[in-house]
């Protein structure tokens, strides 16, 4: 965990989607897929709290974050210019568990909307280790799928879905997932990130098919470092209890999540 004033070295915008590249050696060196950073979007008291963003990509000395503009913090962040500094803390949390023997194993990575953010880094790592990541990338409409090309450039298989049918599978990503399960029956594990309702539906399908699954959960974070107990989610451990999503997650096994 480091606090770093990271220089913004690259930026891309697609309507309300933003990709920022940040120079941050220490965080880049330690980051694992599924971990996140906490960013202070300005030096003012408003907005007061840091905002959490998944680590979307890592290359030598750099990380990327990919986010959707949804409110005050993400709007301010979207207005940052290349060359400016961004104060971040990271890498935080516990990421996805990729077992050591990934070789030739098949994985579905299921990302709804901004939930795609951590799955790019994860897909790259699985591929690097010799595994086969298949990405399902769903959104409302075509313009909300700005990362397709990025997956193609890495030669990662990606299946888009749109609710309005403007691109790829016409319908919900959960339906696409059920459909895709018929194509491959030796899935080692699925990794999921997206809106709560989507993940809940995926969890039902995964359970029915006895699939090992991990989900990256969202909640409102106060600190991101385990200090405030604000971010809790309900888990089944020895008993049902509230567990801090920021420090014990945000990634949890499907076996313990209470939807």
């Amino acid at each position, binding site marked *: *965990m480091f606090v770093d004033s990271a220089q913004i070295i690259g930026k891309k915008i697609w309507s309300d989607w933003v990709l920022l590249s940040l120079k941050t050696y220490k965080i880049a060196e330690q980051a694992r897929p599924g971990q996140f950073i906490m960013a*202070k979007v300005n030096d003012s008291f408003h907005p*007061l*709290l840091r905002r959490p963003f998944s680590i979307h990509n890592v290359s030598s000395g750099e990380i990327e974050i990919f986010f959707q503009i949804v409110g005050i913090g993400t709007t301010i962040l979207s207005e940052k210019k290349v060359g400016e500094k961004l104060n971040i803390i990271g890498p935080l949390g516990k990421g996805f568990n990729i077992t050591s023997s990934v070789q030739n194993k098949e994985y579905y990575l299921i990302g709804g909307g901004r939930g795609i953010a951590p799955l790019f880094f994860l897909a790259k790592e699985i591929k690097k280790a010799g595994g086969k990541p298949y990405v399902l990338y769903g959104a409302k409409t075509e313009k909300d799928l700005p990362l397709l090309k990025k997956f193609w450039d890495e030669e990662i298989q990606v299946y888009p879905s749109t609710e309005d049918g403007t691109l790829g599978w016409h319908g919900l990503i959960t339906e696409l997932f059920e459909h895709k399960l018929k194509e491959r029956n030796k899935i080692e594990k699925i990794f999921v990130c997206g809106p709560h309702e989507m993940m809940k539906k995926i969890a039902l399908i995964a359970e029915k098919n006895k699939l090992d699954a991990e989900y990256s959960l969202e909640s409102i974070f106060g*600190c991101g470092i385990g*200090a405030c107990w604000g971010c809790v989610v309900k888990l089944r451990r020895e008993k049902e209890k*509230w567990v801090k999503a920021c*420090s014990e997650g945000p990634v949890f096994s499907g076996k313990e999540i209470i939807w």
Partner: protein
Amino acid sequence: MVDLTINLGFIKLRNPIITASGTFGYGLEFSPFLDLREIGAIIVKGLYFNEREGNPPPRIFETPCGMLNSIGLQGIGVKKFAEEILPKLTDYGVPIIVNVCGEEDDEYARVVEFLSSKKGISCFELNISCPNVRKDGKCPAISPEWTYNIVKLVKQSTKKPVITKLSPNVTDITEIAISAEEAGTDGISLINTILGMAVDIETRKPRLGNVFGGLSGPAIKPIALRMVYQVVNTVKVPVIGIGGIFKGVDALEFLIVGAKAVQVGTANLIDPLAPLRILNEIKDFCEKKGITKIEDIIGTLKVGD
């Protein structure tokens, strides 16, 4: 060189910066970020006797220059704290203050009795002022008698010094402060969070699972400062100022008003280096002004001509 040491009478501190309960975890969470030894004292998250579940989420909602929280004192209880946290924390050699909670009056006594025999605890801070535990936002610190009874009971249950933490959700803060002093408290800290709420107009639901929450952060500093001013001018025991301290200048305001030390709360959530940054800013101010001893600033407010 500025002499930053503070003598509260019942405890000597390396410097006037204390971390506020509930915003600094059990302390250890911050060891990757700063040297805990350099902080004046650490107040750990509020402890009940047993493990506690806390309130349903959402537990946090950000407001302009502040935040509402309704954590509801989720925590690990005294046994786990004494076994798993305390031994590690004492290794740092920083004074440790335990924030004590109780569902019933008697629970405060049980918590301090259990912990008094444990090595490494400097003193207790009685959290009689958490607005998040009962549905109606009530707490002992809203009543002079209730405050008196709990402080008295706790003082009879431990030989260690006791700080009583007051709530701002009262009509006359001085009345409560007097009760705490009469019951024998060794110090007073204030303020805890201000009871508030927020509504989502789309869903027409409260923003917090618990409906009410406690407001903290820069937004509450003027209220906190006024209440600290009132209390230092009413009681003789040392007063510790809390509320919206984010910078050295904020801490200095509280000291000038008469607080002997300050607690940094919400700032820790945003800047884990805040306690030491604030301390350095105080040091810089003193050096610039030729002040050699921090205690010389305390209570130097000039009212009138």
